[in-house]
């Protein structure tokens, strides 16, 4: 058959060749179940792979503690309860001491950092090793690969949090005063917005080979500085405070302090939770759009398989 008399030529979107040997796989299964299946398969593979790196897991688990202990010690020494500077800056926020003010967001920052590292690092590694291309010609939904990776990470996240809080409690006991419904809601949203941001930033790796470092600078530096993790954003000039309020972590840290240290009720926090939820949805939408755009750009420029 010549190209000219092949009926497929006149079709913009074809229904496929009818294979005479019965191999045709035309019918696509239900999209949602396929998507979920891709996510679960990738998450399982992530968990299996990570089991091969127990020392790395230990490092990731202990990392946050090692990172935040010096900050907390220093903070407690200077402005902790009963210290000379206590109350000077934090009294107005109605927290009993700087340790609590500092500890909660620092744990979150440290853990967020592992999310950014994980998603960005793995994408970079898969691209360099050659498996990214192989997976992308198998999977029906590329974004499901990111989600699967994120959920695989989430499996270990509980371990990291438990290790961090346990070690912190042994050394510097925190005076938690928790409202559980509020805390569950805000922790869920915090995690979701972190993954959404990491998702969006990871896509940039397809455009810039060493953007992993840029991503870490953004997550460790810019976001931590602007979000009031270590000091109240009220010390900033008004214009910078406005920018800081656009960072989802600013809302997340504030809500975490209120729910974990002051047992604020869900109803009282609801308006701010709604803002954080909106930012979470926004980050995920941006993440999906970025990923789609960057994948297409990478397909055009041929950099998907650079290694």
């Amino acid at each position, binding site marked *: *058959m*010549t*190209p000219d008399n*092949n009926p*497929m*030529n006149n079709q*913009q*979107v*074809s*229904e*496929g*060749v*009818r*294979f*005479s*040997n*019965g*191999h*045709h*796989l*035309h019918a*696509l*299964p239900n999209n949602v179940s*396929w998507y979920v*299946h*891709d996510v*679960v*398969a*990738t998450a*399982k*593979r992530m968990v*299996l*792979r990570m089991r*091969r*790196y127990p020392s790395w897991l230990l490092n990731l688990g202990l990392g946050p503690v090692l990172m935040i202990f010096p900050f907390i010690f220093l903070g407690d020494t200077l402005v902790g309860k009963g210290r000379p500077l206590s109350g000077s800056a934090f009294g107005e926020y109605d927290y009993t001491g700087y340790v609590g003010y500092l500890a909660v967001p620092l744990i979150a920052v440290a853990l967020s950092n592992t999310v950014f590292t994980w998603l960005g690092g793995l994408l970079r590694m898969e691209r360099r*090793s*050659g*498996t990214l*291309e*192989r*997976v*992308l*010609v*198998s*999977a*029906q939904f590329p974004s499901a690969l990111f989600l699967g990776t994120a959920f695989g990470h989430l499996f270990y996240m509980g371990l990291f949090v438990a290790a961090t809080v346990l070690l912190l409690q042994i050394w510097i006991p925190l005076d938690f005063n928790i409202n559980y419904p509020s805390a569950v809601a805000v922790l869920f949203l915090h995690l979701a917005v972190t993954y959404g941001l990491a998702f969006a930033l990871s896509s940039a790796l397809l455009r*810039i080979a*060493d953007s992993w470092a*840029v991503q870490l600078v953004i997550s460790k530096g810019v976001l931590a500085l602007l979000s009031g993790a270590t000091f109240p954003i009220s010390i900033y000039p008004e214009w910078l405070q406005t920018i800081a309020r656009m960072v989802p972590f600013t809302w997340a840290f504030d809500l975490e302090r209120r729910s974990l240290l002051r047992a604020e009720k869900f109803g009282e926090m609801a308006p701010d939770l709604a803002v954080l939820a909106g930012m979470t949805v926004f980050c995920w939408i941006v993440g999906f759009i970025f990923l789609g755009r960057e994948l*297409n750009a990478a*397909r*055009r*420029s*041929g950099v*998907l*398989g650079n*290694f």
Partner: protein
Amino acid sequence: MTLWSKPQPVLAGELVIQIEGLTKRFTKNVDNPALWRRVLGRFQTVPIVAIDALDLHIEQGQFFSLLGPNGAGKTSTVRTLCTLLLPDEGSCRVAGYDAAKQQREVRRNIGVSVRGERSVYWKITGRQNLRYFAGLYGMRGEEVSRRIGEVTELVGLTGRIDDYVERYSMGMKQRLAIAVSLLHRPPVLLLDEPTIGLDPNGARALRSLLRDLCEQEGVTIFYTTHYLHEAEELSHRLAIIHEGRKVLEGSPDEVRSTLGDNRIVEVQLAPSAKTTVTSLRNHRMVEKVISENRQPTVTTVRLEMKEAINSVVEIAAGDGFANDRVLGMNLVRPTLEDVFASVTGYSASEVREEEDDT
């Protein structure tokens, strides 16, 4: 053993792969720009044409080989067919679906081996790799275990499938990559140099497997390779591309016949006859030296003559050929390698050496 679930006779004729005017250009940075320049896209680039208005039409059940020197555009063509690259111009249809617009449908109907042993996860076992990819292909439950058993046996990894892939030899990783591509019984296989790294026995076994898949099960196979004997042995049709352009296409016999009979002369020279080779290369009747094979006792040179000759006697008395270092001369039938060297300017051995260097 049944390779595929429903072996049925193949009715050839329908085009399964259609490439029309495919053009793909890449850009290369002129210098090494700073990060901020790259972020803002402010750096100079030069265009490189990887594929230039390529047309290929492959029928159902055909074994089609794409040959060409390094950088000719073979891998770019495979990557475009399997949705990893978007064409700049032209179109690609695989199994009737547009590779640029219907990516999911294309992916579902193809088995791909690109990057060979680097396309599988080394930190998990072979079986875990197969389970993962089976999941991505939408396979469920009992079917997964059964199919993993089948493809593992097909590629000869049964005894090692529960080992971590990092402990496999390169050839075993390559075979695992092939097993992954066969998992979902795709009607179209796109294989980019799948025998690189395999030992001769492994390569022979893989060729035998591919031949069976094509001939018994009607699987359409698009194959790129540097090993011309593989293309000659397996292909119903083949094409040679050079600098992104198709220079020849046809069955192996048709391609071989393009050089015409009586144009290839094989000359045996005494060792270290460098000056003689040079004089042959510059001889008025010689178009080009196709290959030069130096052995301790004899150097064999294959020459493409400018015109057909009836007998080596015609040239034996000519300048350059009448040399006491010339041990013998034969008029031989052109091989695929001769044609390849003639149209690309590269001998197959040069291509393989370049590949080894990279």
